[in-house]
């Protein structure tokens, strides 16, 4: 952002008349935009965030009312404060963090494997027409099989332990990343490749300097979806394969002993972790792809 501001500041300095200030009907329209972005104050931004909290707030109120006035069976829905005390207890005895770290570790290992394989395979399909013809149809057919339908097969082949879980998570992340990487690479502008050819770029330079950066926004979209799928897959794998440390296991324990506060704690943690992963990914995307015209700027 500081870079953009420097540009804006210089643009309005004495140099401007030299750069077609009067000549162009558009008075450097793009250069003004970052300044417009900056006028959104801290207050306005936090107001936007607060609007997003309205619905969760209402749900919480409904939950409190329903459990306190006996509107729901107390064996099926625990009171919110019981979930909070359960959370404190689980934090004290270390169980929550142990389970949480086990899940996140599993999630990340599976995701990294799936993402690396996905970018490489998607890249291959995008760059080489021959491999698209060879692998494309099989891949697109296999992609139609619902994620959880692989579990029975995997448990037979790989058992129900850690390996099967990680492989399942990797597969979950793999599909969206392959699809988006391939699409990103295929959408590279022919015009940009011609520029590179005019400067005598080698094939490898074209892939690295033109094709890959062009595909990056699409790859990022795939990575973001992949992260979400991997986290869904983590909980699913923990729930459906053999019990081990993990948030899914916390929920199984809760269900089996009919401790609904434990189950609801699990649900809350899963949701919070998922939301945090999403937030981190979009922050990273904003930084890496800061050259793009954002939807906000485009609307100006």
């Amino acid at each position: 952002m500081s870079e953009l501001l420097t540009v804006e500041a210089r643009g309005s300095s004495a140099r401007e008349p030299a750069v077609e200030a009067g000549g162009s009907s558009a008075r450097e329209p793009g250069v003004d935009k970052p300044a417009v972005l900056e006028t959104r104050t801290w207050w306005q931004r936090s107001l936007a965030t607060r609007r997003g909290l309205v619905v969760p707030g209402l749900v919480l109120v409904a939950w409190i009312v329903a459990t306190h006035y006996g509107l729901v069976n107390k064996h099926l829905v625990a009171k919110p404060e019981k979930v909070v005390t359960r959370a404190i207890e689980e934090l004290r005895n270390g169980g929550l963090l142990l389970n949480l770290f086990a899940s996140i570790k599993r999630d990340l290992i599976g995701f990294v494997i799936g993402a690396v394989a996905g970018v490489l395979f998607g890249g291959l399909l995008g760059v080489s027409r021959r491999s698209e013809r060879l692998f494309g149809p099989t891949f697109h057919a296999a992609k139609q099989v619902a994620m959880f339908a692989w579990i029975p097969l995997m448990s037979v082949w790989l058992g129900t332990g850690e390996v099967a879980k990680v492989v399942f998570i990797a597969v979950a992340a793999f599909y969206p990343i392959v699809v988006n990487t391939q699409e990103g690479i295929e959408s590279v502008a022919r015009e940009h490749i011609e520029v590179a050819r005019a400067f005598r770029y080698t094939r490898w330079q074209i892939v690295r300097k033109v094709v890959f950066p062009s595909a990056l926004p699409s790859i990022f979209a795939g990575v973001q979806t992949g992260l979400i799928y991997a986290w869904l897959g983590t909980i699913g794998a923990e729930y459906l394969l053999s019990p081990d440390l993990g948030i899914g296991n916390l929920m199984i324990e809760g269900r089996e002993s009919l401790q609904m506060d434990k189950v609801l704690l699990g649900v809350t943690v899963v949701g919070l972790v998922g939301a945090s992963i999403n937030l981190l990914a979009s922050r990273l995307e904003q930084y890496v792809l800061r050259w793009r015209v954002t939807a906000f700027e485009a609307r100006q």
Partner: protein
Amino acid sequence: MTEQAIIDIRQVSKRYKVSNEALLVLDSLNLSVQPGEFLSIVGASGCGKSTLLRLLTGLDADYDGEIKIRGERVVGTSLDRGIVFQEHRLFPWLTVKQNVGLGLQNSTWSQEKKQKAVDDHIALVGLTGFEGAFPHQLSGGMAQRAAIARGLVNQPSILLLDEPFGALDALTRSRLQQELQRIWQAEKITMILVTHDVDEAVYLGDRVVVLQPRPGRIRRIVDVDVAHPRDRADPALKALTEEVRGEIVNVSPN
């Protein structure tokens, strides 16, 4: 005269395959360009002027006849020939400075020389202060300036311009035409400008090649013996402009 020519085009024809039929786009073109000359190529759409420029760039090698640069047949693209397209074609993920530097990727110059070349050419097109801007932050005219700097950064001996100002508004266009004339005088290189704008062709060109369409042939070559830098209001220039316009309008079937 042909001996000292920097570009020599001999009997060049080009066909495109359109639904199994060969469509003749350029028909037996002959043309020589002198070093340091500013040559304008003007014609209605469909006369093959952009095709000719692509052949000169080396982006398309599928043609009949011969194109020689300093006596050597054109094979592929060359860092000695810069190109500016109608759309700026800047890479949106790179800053102005990085975009201008693209042309030096495969240059053998030292790092300092590359750095200096980038800075000098950004200054040449009047973009100093905007090095860190991304393309979406620039106006159309500024983006095209950056594209011209990118085309010149290798210090090629020939700069090819494919309707470079066609997408700009009239005021920005005339300002950039003036700038291009200044840059051409400063760099002392050969420039070939393809355009459908007759005023632009005559204002900038030492010679104006008028192409006629279907198939593309040279109709006439008009010498513009007016000293640079030129004044648009010059009566001689105006008379020549009308003469060239007449050539194009008369031949147009539509």
